[in-house]
Each structure stands twice: as structure tokens, then as C-alpha cells.
């Protein structure tokens, strides 16, 4: 399918979907970049910043697809939109912990590992579905991103497994992070209000199928590492796919766009 053969409703569903994909990667890449210099050890600092850089690249790729669909320039999409125009899941925008990058950062590594691991599994499943998307430019993007995502998933899976089966203290912190992430992971798993149009257009598979695949994979890991079952993932803090967000996103966007907003016309 291309923009000439799709109707208006299909095109707007496609655009909505690509905003979700771009914004999820964009904001989680930003949260990852806040760990620069603060990760538990030097190797992790190198690895995590490399992963965040890859993910920011994935977001940029999606914003370029949106640019081609007439949504405006990619840089502007990243820097000039108001928080309510973002479609990322709320879980991904939440701060890493108390404090800020510059002032007393007391970030939660267990939460970071759990959030990134859960998201990496879902991203993998979502990309596997997008590879077969009826919109060819999106399918091409997914095929490219998946070769990089492979390493990210491997990285977070290793961290998750090792920490949750480590000392009592590590296990306690990891279980509390699992509980926290679970309360909002439903917000990652949903495709939002225009989901049936996305599926009808053949852009992505049914959200229930993707969710089932995610749950299967996560539950397998839970059994293997002794994490108790968590039930149905919830959407407690609101639905980011509908443009609902927390102050955490507004604050992040202010910091992120500070330089760009001082002079949007300058070259990079």
C-alpha cells in the first residue's frame, strides 16, 4: 500500500502509528542518555550510551517517515511539539529516579533494567510484525532497525536475568521495579484509539496478538528466574497513545529542546 492507494482514514491511522513508534524510542533514548556517566560501571556506560544513540537514530528514522507523509520537518517533530502531541506510552517517559542529571541524580538501576528489558521484548515483537507492514517504507525501516535491536534485547535480557537471580537485595529491588513497570506496561501494549484502522490497513497486526506474544515471552522469563506471575499489565498513569502525559514528559521536553528552541533556524 502507498499514500496514493490508501484513504484518508487509513493514512491518519498510519501516521498515528508512526508517532507511537517514534515517540516511544525518542523518549526512552532520552532517559537512557541521562545515565551517561552514571551507569554502574564503565562498560555499561559505553554500552548504554551506544544503545541510546541507536534508539535516537530509530526515532529520527520514524520522524523522517512522518516528514514524507507531510507531517513537517523531522527536527521540528522532535523538538517543537507540545507534550499532548506526543504518543509515547507514559511508562517510557517516567524519570529514572529522584534528582536530575545535574543535581543529585539518585537514579534507580533496577527500574531502568526492567523498563528497558520489557520494552526491548515488545519492540522486537512489534518490529517482527512491522516487517510485514503493508506500507513498504515502514516495513523497510523495521527490517533495518531489527538488526540493531537484536543486540539491545540481548543486553537487557542478560541484565534482567543476572540481577533478578543475584543477591537478596538485588532481587528485592528488581521485584519492586517489576511491580512498578507492570502497573503501566499496558500503556505500551496498546495501539490507542485508532488501532482498528491500523490493523485494517495492514500496517501492523492486532494489538491483542502482540500482547499475547509479549506475555508469553515475559512469563517464560519469570518462570525461569523465579519471579511471581503479575497478572494483567495495567494502564494506571494514563494513556499516552491518547496524548495523556505526566509532568515528567513536559520537563524532559523542555530540557531536550532547550538548545534547539533558542534558534530553530541554525544548522546542525
Amino acid at each position, binding site marked *: 500500500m502507498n499514500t496514493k492507494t490508501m484513504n484518508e482514514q487509513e493514512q491518519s491511522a498510519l501516521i498515528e502509528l508512526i508517532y507511537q513508534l517514534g515517540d516511544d524510542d525518542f523518549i526512552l533514548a532520552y532517559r537512557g542518555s541521562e545515565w551517561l556517566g552514571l551507569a554502574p560501571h564503565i562498560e555499561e556506560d*559505553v*554500552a548504554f550510551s551506544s*544503545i541510546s544513540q541507536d534508539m535516537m537514530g530509530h526515532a529520527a528514522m520514524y520522524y523522517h517517515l512522518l516528514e514524507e507523509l507531510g507531517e513537517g520537518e523531522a527536527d521540528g517533530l522532535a523538538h517543537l511539539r507540545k507534550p499532548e502531541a506526543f504518543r509515547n506510552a507514559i511508562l517510557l517517559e517516567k524519570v529514572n529516579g529522584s534528582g536530575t542529571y545535574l543535581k543529585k541524580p539518585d537514579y534507580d538501576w533496577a527500574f531502568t533494567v526492567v523498563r528497558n528489558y520489557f520494552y526491548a521484548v515488545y519492540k522486537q515483537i512489534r518490529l517482527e510484525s512491522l516487517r510485514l507492514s503493508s506500507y513498504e517504507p515502514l516495513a523497510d525501516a523495521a527490517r533495518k532497525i531489527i*538488526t540493531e535491536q537484536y543486540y539491545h534485547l540481548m543486553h537487557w535480557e542478560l541484565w534482567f536475568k543476572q540481577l533478578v537471580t543475584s543477591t537478596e537485595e538485588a532481587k528485592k529491588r528488581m521485584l519492586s521495579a517489576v511491580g512498578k513497570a507492570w502497573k503501566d506496561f499496558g500503556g505500551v501494549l496498546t495501539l490507542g484509539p485508532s488501532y482498528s484502522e491500523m490493523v485494517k490497513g495492514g500496517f501492523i497486526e492486532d494489538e491483542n496478538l502482540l500482547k499475547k506474544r509479549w506475555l508469553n515471552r515475559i512469563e517464560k522469563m519469570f518462570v525461569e528466574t523465579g519471579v511471581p506471575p503479575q497478572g494483567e499489565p495495567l494502564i494506571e498513569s494514563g494513556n499516552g497513545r491518547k496524548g495523556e502525559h505526566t509532568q515528567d514528559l513536559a520537563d524532559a521536553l523542555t530540557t531536550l529542546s532547550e538548545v534547539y528552541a533558542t534558534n530553530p533556524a541554525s544548522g546542525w
Partner: protein
Amino acid sequence: MEAVLQSMNLKEKVLLALKEVTDPEISSISILDLGMVEDVEATDGSVVIKALPTFVGCPALHIIERDIKKAASEVDGVKEVKVDFVFSPSWTTDRITEEGKIRLKEFGIAPPPANHVMGEPWSIDCPYCGSSYVTMENIFGPTACRSILYCKSCKNPFEAMKPVADMN
């Protein structure tokens, strides 16, 4: 040389010029040997170069684009140059030429394994002494495309090109 150049068509001349465009982060290897150039179309002095990004978020892409434009514009007969980064086909490490593998080694980077299948074990030889008695220190390295290793034989740290294979 004059005579050889004269007998070449515009596309061949542009390709020759692209041999001089190197990866800004690995200056010993040309983008041709990296397998980044998918196609060159030359019609009446207007040239369109289709290039494949190695890693999507590679910050060197803008520099590479600029360098491609500069090199191609200097070719006699070229009026305008356009660079399109495309994602189909996907760049994989199998696209690196034999010449490219030698150039990578010169830079202290072990070339990626040939015909790698994602998920399968991956054997890397030290680019300095050739030993396979090496350990992986970090899959992620100083740039998106490299990993960090250590050679237990010659006791040198080194880097390796992270294998990227088509997974589709």
C-alpha cells in the same frame, strides 16, 4: 591515465571518485569497500547516489553525505549530485569487500565474520597477531558498529566490527 579516464563513462568516473571517500570514523576504509554504495545513476551530468547507512543512528552519516557530494561534484562532467540514504536492501557486514577487510585490520579493527547468522557463535581473530584466543569485553564499543575485545595471546585490546546480518 588520461586515455583511460576518457574511455570511462560518467558513472564509472563517479565510482572512481567515491573510492577516495572514507568513513570519518575509520579513515583507512572507503565507503565503497564498506559496501555503503548501492547504486550510482548518472544521466546528463546529474548524478543520484543511493547509499545504505551502516547503523541508523550513525552520527557520521551527514559527514559521509557531504563528502560524497564533494567528491562526485569534482568529477568532470557532473553538474549536480544528490545522495539518497535508503534502507532497502539493508546494509549488512557481508557487503564489506576483501579489500575492505584488509583496511579494517590496518586500523586495528577485526573484520566481521563472513556469512554470519545472527544468534550463532562468532569467532574473531586478533587483528594484530591473528590469534583466536580472545575475550569479548563489550559488545558495544566507541561507535555503533564496533565491539571491544582483548587478545590474550599478544595482550592487546582491540575492536571488532559488530556482525550485522539480514534477519528477515
